[in-house]
Protein backbone atom coordinates (compact mmCIF):
# COMPACT_ATOMS: atom_id res chain seq x y z
CA UNK A 1 0.00 0.00 0.00
CA UNK A 2 2.41 2.67 1.16
CA UNK A 3 5.28 2.11 -1.20
CA UNK A 4 7.65 5.06 -0.73
CA UNK A 5 8.94 4.68 -4.28
CA UNK A 6 5.58 5.87 -5.54
CA UNK A 7 6.46 9.31 -4.25
CA UNK A 8 9.47 9.52 -6.53
CA UNK A 9 7.37 10.71 -9.46
CA UNK A 10 6.09 14.25 -9.10
CA UNK A 11 4.85 14.71 -12.64
CA UNK A 12 1.45 15.97 -13.70
CA UNK A 13 0.16 12.47 -14.33
CA UNK A 14 0.61 11.82 -10.65
CA UNK A 15 -1.35 14.93 -9.78
CA UNK A 16 -4.19 13.62 -11.96
CA UNK A 17 -4.14 10.35 -10.06
CA UNK A 18 -4.37 12.31 -6.82
CA UNK A 19 -7.39 14.34 -7.93
CA UNK A 20 -8.99 11.17 -9.29
CA UNK A 21 -8.57 9.56 -5.89
CA UNK A 22 -10.18 12.46 -4.06
CA UNK A 23 -13.03 12.52 -6.61
CA UNK A 24 -13.58 8.79 -6.07
CA UNK A 25 -13.47 9.27 -2.31
CA UNK A 26 -16.05 12.02 -2.66
CA UNK A 27 -18.35 9.50 -4.40
CA UNK A 28 -17.83 7.13 -1.45
CA UNK A 29 -18.72 9.96 0.96
CA UNK A 30 -21.91 10.63 -0.98
CA UNK A 31 -22.89 6.96 -0.73
CA UNK A 32 -22.22 7.18 3.00
CA UNK A 33 -24.42 10.27 2.97
CA UNK A 34 -27.25 8.15 1.54
CA UNK A 35 -26.88 5.69 4.43
CA UNK A 36 -27.32 8.57 6.87
CA UNK A 37 -30.24 9.93 4.83
CA UNK A 38 -32.05 6.60 5.19
CA UNK A 39 -31.29 6.50 8.93
CA UNK A 40 -32.59 10.08 9.28
CA UNK A 41 -35.75 9.16 7.37
CA UNK A 42 -36.26 6.12 9.63
CA UNK A 43 -35.76 8.28 12.70
CA UNK A 44 -38.21 10.87 11.36
CA UNK A 45 -40.87 8.20 10.79
CA UNK A 46 -40.38 6.55 14.20
CA UNK A 47 -39.75 9.61 16.36
CA UNK A 48 -43.31 9.63 17.71
CA UNK A 49 -43.45 5.89 18.48
CA UNK A 50 -42.27 6.04 22.08
CA UNK A 51 -44.35 3.03 23.24
CA UNK A 52 -45.06 4.68 26.63
CA UNK A 53 -41.31 5.08 27.10
CA UNK A 54 -39.54 8.44 27.42
CA UNK A 55 -39.68 10.96 24.56
CA UNK A 56 -36.71 12.98 23.38
CA UNK A 57 -37.36 15.98 25.61
CA UNK A 58 -37.44 13.73 28.69
CA UNK A 59 -33.96 12.29 28.16
CA UNK A 60 -31.87 14.77 26.12
CA UNK A 61 -29.74 17.51 27.66
CA UNK A 62 -29.12 20.38 25.25
CA UNK A 63 -26.12 21.91 27.10
CA UNK A 64 -24.43 18.48 26.93
CA UNK A 65 -25.12 18.27 23.17
CA UNK A 66 -23.78 21.81 22.74
CA UNK A 67 -20.55 20.62 24.40
CA UNK A 68 -20.28 17.67 22.00
CA UNK A 69 -20.92 20.02 19.06
CA UNK A 70 -18.19 22.42 20.21
CA UNK A 71 -15.66 19.56 20.38
CA UNK A 72 -16.48 18.33 16.87
CA UNK A 73 -16.49 21.83 15.36
CA UNK A 74 -13.13 22.63 16.93
CA UNK A 75 -11.71 19.33 15.65
CA UNK A 76 -12.82 20.22 12.11
CA UNK A 77 -10.93 23.50 12.40
CA UNK A 78 -7.78 21.88 13.82
CA UNK A 79 -7.80 19.33 10.98
CA UNK A 80 -8.11 22.15 8.45
CA UNK A 81 -5.14 23.91 10.05
CA UNK A 82 -3.25 20.61 9.94
CA UNK A 83 -3.94 20.23 6.21
CA UNK A 84 -2.47 23.70 5.63
CA UNK A 85 0.69 22.64 7.49
CA UNK A 86 0.80 19.43 5.44
CA UNK A 87 0.54 21.32 2.12
CA UNK A 88 3.25 23.71 3.30
CA UNK A 89 5.44 20.68 3.99
CA UNK A 90 5.75 21.35 7.73
CA UNK A 91 5.58 17.96 9.40
CA UNK A 92 5.95 19.02 13.03
CA UNK A 93 2.92 21.34 13.11
CA UNK A 94 0.95 18.78 11.08
CA UNK A 95 1.58 16.04 13.65
CA UNK A 96 0.63 18.42 16.48
CA UNK A 97 -2.63 19.41 14.73
CA UNK A 98 -3.48 15.77 13.98
CA UNK A 99 -2.91 14.74 17.61
CA UNK A 100 -5.11 17.64 18.75
CA UNK A 101 -7.81 16.58 16.28
CA UNK A 102 -7.66 12.97 17.46
CA UNK A 103 -7.91 14.03 21.12
CA UNK A 104 -10.93 16.25 20.39
CA UNK A 105 -12.54 13.39 18.45
CA UNK A 106 -11.84 10.97 21.29
CA UNK A 107 -13.38 13.43 23.78
CA UNK A 108 -16.47 13.60 21.55
CA UNK A 109 -16.79 9.81 21.38
CA UNK A 110 -16.24 9.64 25.15
CA UNK A 111 -19.07 12.11 25.78
CA UNK A 112 -21.33 10.14 23.44
CA UNK A 113 -20.54 6.82 25.12
CA UNK A 114 -21.19 8.41 28.53
CA UNK A 115 -24.53 9.70 27.24
CA UNK A 116 -25.48 6.27 25.88
CA UNK A 117 -24.45 4.52 29.10
CA UNK A 118 -26.52 6.96 31.18
CA UNK A 119 -29.56 6.41 28.93
CA UNK A 120 -29.31 2.61 29.16
CA UNK A 121 -28.79 2.88 32.92
CA UNK A 122 -31.90 5.06 33.28
CA UNK A 123 -34.09 2.55 31.45
CA UNK A 124 -33.99 4.28 28.05
CA UNK A 125 -31.99 1.68 26.14
CA UNK A 126 -32.41 0.86 22.44
CA UNK A 127 -34.89 -1.92 23.20
CA UNK A 128 -37.45 0.29 24.95
CA UNK A 129 -39.21 1.81 21.93
CA UNK A 130 -38.97 2.26 18.16
CA UNK A 131 -37.96 5.87 18.80
CA UNK A 132 -35.01 4.82 20.96
CA UNK A 133 -33.98 2.07 18.51
CA UNK A 134 -33.87 4.63 15.70
CA UNK A 135 -32.05 7.13 17.93
CA UNK A 136 -29.32 4.71 18.97
CA UNK A 137 -28.87 3.47 15.39
CA UNK A 138 -28.57 6.95 13.88
CA UNK A 139 -26.37 8.57 16.54
CA UNK A 140 -24.42 5.34 17.08
CA UNK A 141 -23.61 5.06 13.36
CA UNK A 142 -22.21 8.59 13.42
CA UNK A 143 -20.20 7.78 16.56
CA UNK A 144 -18.84 4.65 14.88
CA UNK A 145 -17.73 6.76 11.92
CA UNK A 146 -15.92 9.17 14.24
CA UNK A 147 -14.25 6.22 16.00
CA UNK A 148 -13.02 4.84 12.66
CA UNK A 149 -11.87 8.36 11.74
CA UNK A 150 -9.74 8.44 14.91
CA UNK A 151 -8.27 5.05 13.98
CA UNK A 152 -7.46 6.40 10.51
CA UNK A 153 -5.91 9.49 12.13
CA UNK A 154 -3.62 7.19 14.09
CA UNK A 155 -2.59 5.39 10.90
CA UNK A 156 -1.89 8.70 9.13
CA UNK A 157 0.12 9.98 12.12
CA UNK A 158 2.31 6.91 11.75
CA UNK A 159 2.64 7.28 7.98
CA UNK A 160 3.43 11.01 8.14
CA UNK A 161 6.01 10.27 10.85
CA UNK A 162 7.53 7.34 9.00
CA UNK A 163 7.40 8.29 5.32
CA UNK A 164 7.31 12.08 5.52
CA UNK A 165 4.92 14.26 3.53
CA UNK A 166 5.22 12.58 0.16
CA UNK A 167 2.57 12.58 -2.55
CA UNK A 168 0.90 9.40 -1.30
CA UNK A 169 0.67 10.53 2.32
CA UNK A 170 -0.71 13.91 1.25
CA UNK A 171 -3.33 12.21 -0.89
CA UNK A 172 -4.45 10.01 1.98
CA UNK A 173 -4.51 12.98 4.34
CA UNK A 174 -6.72 14.84 1.84
CA UNK A 175 -9.18 11.92 1.84
CA UNK A 176 -9.18 11.75 5.64
CA UNK A 177 -9.80 15.50 5.91
CA UNK A 178 -12.83 15.16 3.61
CA UNK A 179 -14.07 12.27 5.77
CA UNK A 180 -13.62 14.28 8.98
CA UNK A 181 -15.35 17.42 7.68
CA UNK A 182 -18.14 15.24 6.29
CA UNK A 183 -18.78 13.80 9.76
CA UNK A 184 -19.11 17.38 11.02
CA UNK A 185 -21.81 17.99 8.39
CA UNK A 186 -23.71 14.89 9.52
CA UNK A 187 -23.46 16.02 13.14
CA UNK A 188 -25.04 19.39 12.24
CA UNK A 189 -28.08 17.47 10.98
CA UNK A 190 -28.03 15.23 14.08
CA UNK A 191 -28.07 18.04 16.62
CA UNK A 192 -30.72 19.92 14.64
CA UNK A 193 -33.14 17.13 13.74
CA UNK A 194 -32.59 14.74 16.66
CA UNK A 195 -31.79 16.90 19.67
CA UNK A 196 -33.10 20.43 19.05
CA UNK A 197 -36.25 19.20 17.31
CA UNK A 198 -37.23 17.26 20.45
CA UNK A 199 -37.60 20.57 22.32
CA UNK A 200 -39.70 22.42 19.72
Amino acid at each position, binding site marked *: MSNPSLSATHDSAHHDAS*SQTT*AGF*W*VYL*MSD*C*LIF*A*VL*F*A*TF*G*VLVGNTADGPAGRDIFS*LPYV*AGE*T*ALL*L*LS*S*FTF*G*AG*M*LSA*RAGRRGPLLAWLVTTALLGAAFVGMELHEFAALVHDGAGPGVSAFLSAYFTLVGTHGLHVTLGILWLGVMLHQAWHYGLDEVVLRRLACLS*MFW*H*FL*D*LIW*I*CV*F*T*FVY*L*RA*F*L
Partner: protein
Amino acid sequence: MNSSSTHSVAGQPQADGHGDMKSYFVGFALSLALTAASFATIMSDIVPHSWRLGSMVALCVIQLLVQLAYFLHLGTGKSQAQNTAIFACTGLLIVIVVAGSLWVMHNANINMMPTQAISQNE
Protein backbone atom coordinates in the same frame (compact mmCIF):
# COMPACT_ATOMS: atom_id res chain seq x y z
CA MET B 1 -27.00 22.88 -11.15
CA ASN B 2 -29.16 25.40 -9.29
CA SER B 3 -27.97 23.89 -6.02
CA SER B 4 -24.37 24.70 -6.81
CA SER B 5 -25.20 28.31 -7.56
CA THR B 6 -26.58 28.70 -4.03
CA HIS B 7 -23.16 27.84 -2.67
CA SER B 8 -21.95 31.24 -3.74
CA VAL B 9 -24.16 32.59 -0.96
CA ALA B 10 -21.77 31.07 1.53
CA GLY B 11 -18.77 32.53 -0.23
CA GLN B 12 -16.05 31.32 -2.51
CA PRO B 13 -12.91 30.98 -0.43
CA GLN B 14 -10.12 29.92 -2.75
CA ALA B 15 -9.89 29.29 -6.46
CA ASP B 16 -7.30 26.53 -6.08
CA GLY B 17 -9.67 24.52 -3.89
CA HIS B 18 -7.43 24.22 -0.83
CA GLY B 19 -8.34 27.25 1.26
CA ASP B 20 -6.04 29.18 3.56
CA MET B 21 -5.87 29.88 7.28
CA LYS B 22 -8.15 32.88 6.94
CA SER B 23 -10.90 30.90 5.20
CA TYR B 24 -10.70 28.20 7.90
CA PHE B 25 -10.98 30.89 10.60
CA VAL B 26 -13.95 32.49 8.85
CA GLY B 27 -15.65 29.12 8.38
CA PHE B 28 -15.04 28.16 12.01
CA ALA B 29 -16.33 31.51 13.34
CA LEU B 30 -19.43 31.34 11.12
CA SER B 31 -20.09 27.72 12.22
CA LEU B 32 -19.78 28.65 15.91
CA ALA B 33 -22.12 31.61 15.47
CA LEU B 34 -24.69 29.55 13.54
CA THR B 35 -24.52 26.71 16.09
CA ALA B 36 -25.00 29.18 18.96
CA ALA B 37 -27.95 30.70 17.08
CA SER B 38 -29.48 27.23 16.56
CA PHE B 39 -29.29 26.36 20.26
CA ALA B 40 -30.48 29.85 21.27
CA THR B 41 -33.52 29.44 19.00
CA ILE B 42 -34.69 26.47 21.04
CA MET B 43 -33.24 27.14 24.50
CA SER B 44 -34.30 30.77 24.90
CA ASP B 45 -37.47 32.75 24.23
CA ILE B 46 -35.97 34.99 21.57
CA VAL B 47 -37.81 33.30 18.70
CA PRO B 48 -41.63 32.97 18.85
CA HIS B 49 -42.88 29.38 18.94
CA SER B 50 -44.40 29.28 15.46
CA TRP B 51 -41.09 30.43 13.92
CA ARG B 52 -38.84 27.96 15.71
CA LEU B 53 -38.98 25.02 13.29
CA GLY B 54 -38.42 27.25 10.26
CA SER B 55 -35.49 29.15 11.75
CA MET B 56 -33.93 25.93 13.09
CA VAL B 57 -34.02 24.29 9.63
CA ALA B 58 -32.80 27.48 7.94
CA LEU B 59 -29.82 27.76 10.34
CA CYS B 60 -29.00 24.08 9.70
CA VAL B 61 -29.02 24.50 5.92
CA ILE B 62 -26.94 27.69 6.09
CA GLN B 63 -24.36 25.98 8.30
CA LEU B 64 -24.18 22.99 5.92
CA LEU B 65 -23.49 25.39 3.04
CA VAL B 66 -20.89 27.31 5.07
CA GLN B 67 -19.00 24.12 5.95
CA LEU B 68 -19.25 22.76 2.39
CA ALA B 69 -17.74 25.99 1.09
CA TYR B 70 -15.10 26.73 3.73
CA PHE B 71 -14.08 23.26 4.96
CA LEU B 72 -14.79 20.95 2.02
CA HIS B 73 -14.03 23.69 -0.55
CA LEU B 74 -17.03 22.82 -2.64
CA GLY B 75 -17.82 25.49 -5.19
CA THR B 76 -18.54 26.29 -8.78
CA GLY B 77 -14.88 26.62 -9.78
CA LYS B 78 -13.49 24.37 -12.48
CA SER B 79 -11.66 21.95 -10.15
CA GLN B 80 -14.66 21.47 -7.86
CA ALA B 81 -17.46 21.50 -10.44
CA GLN B 82 -17.50 17.69 -10.71
CA ASN B 83 -17.72 17.18 -6.97
CA THR B 84 -20.40 19.83 -6.70
CA ALA B 85 -22.45 18.14 -9.43
CA ILE B 86 -22.16 14.76 -7.67
CA PHE B 87 -23.20 16.45 -4.43
CA ALA B 88 -26.21 18.05 -6.12
CA CYS B 89 -27.35 14.65 -7.45
CA THR B 90 -26.93 13.10 -4.01
CA GLY B 91 -28.84 16.00 -2.48
CA LEU B 92 -31.72 15.30 -4.87
CA LEU B 93 -31.72 11.59 -3.91
CA ILE B 94 -31.68 12.51 -0.21
CA VAL B 95 -34.61 14.88 -0.59
CA ILE B 96 -36.61 12.19 -2.45
CA VAL B 97 -35.79 9.47 0.11
CA VAL B 98 -36.35 11.57 3.25
CA ALA B 99 -39.35 13.65 2.13
CA GLY B 100 -40.93 10.63 0.39
CA SER B 101 -40.57 8.39 3.46
CA LEU B 102 -42.01 11.00 5.82
CA TRP B 103 -44.88 11.78 3.43
CA VAL B 104 -45.84 8.17 2.73
CA MET B 105 -45.59 7.05 6.36
CA HIS B 106 -47.50 10.10 7.59
CA ASN B 107 -50.34 9.31 5.18
CA ALA B 108 -50.22 5.65 6.15
CA ASN B 109 -50.56 6.66 9.80
CA ILE B 110 -53.57 8.92 9.33
CA ASN B 111 -55.39 6.76 6.77
CA MET B 112 -54.97 3.36 8.38
CA MET B 113 -57.39 2.76 11.20
CA PRO B 114 -55.95 0.93 14.19
CA THR B 115 -57.12 -2.69 14.07
CA GLN B 116 -58.70 -2.39 17.52
CA ALA B 117 -60.92 0.49 16.38
CA ILE B 118 -62.05 -1.51 13.34
CA SER B 119 -63.02 -4.54 15.39
CA GLN B 120 -64.91 -2.31 17.80
CA ASN B 121 -66.92 -0.81 14.91
CA GLU B 122 -67.95 -4.19 13.59
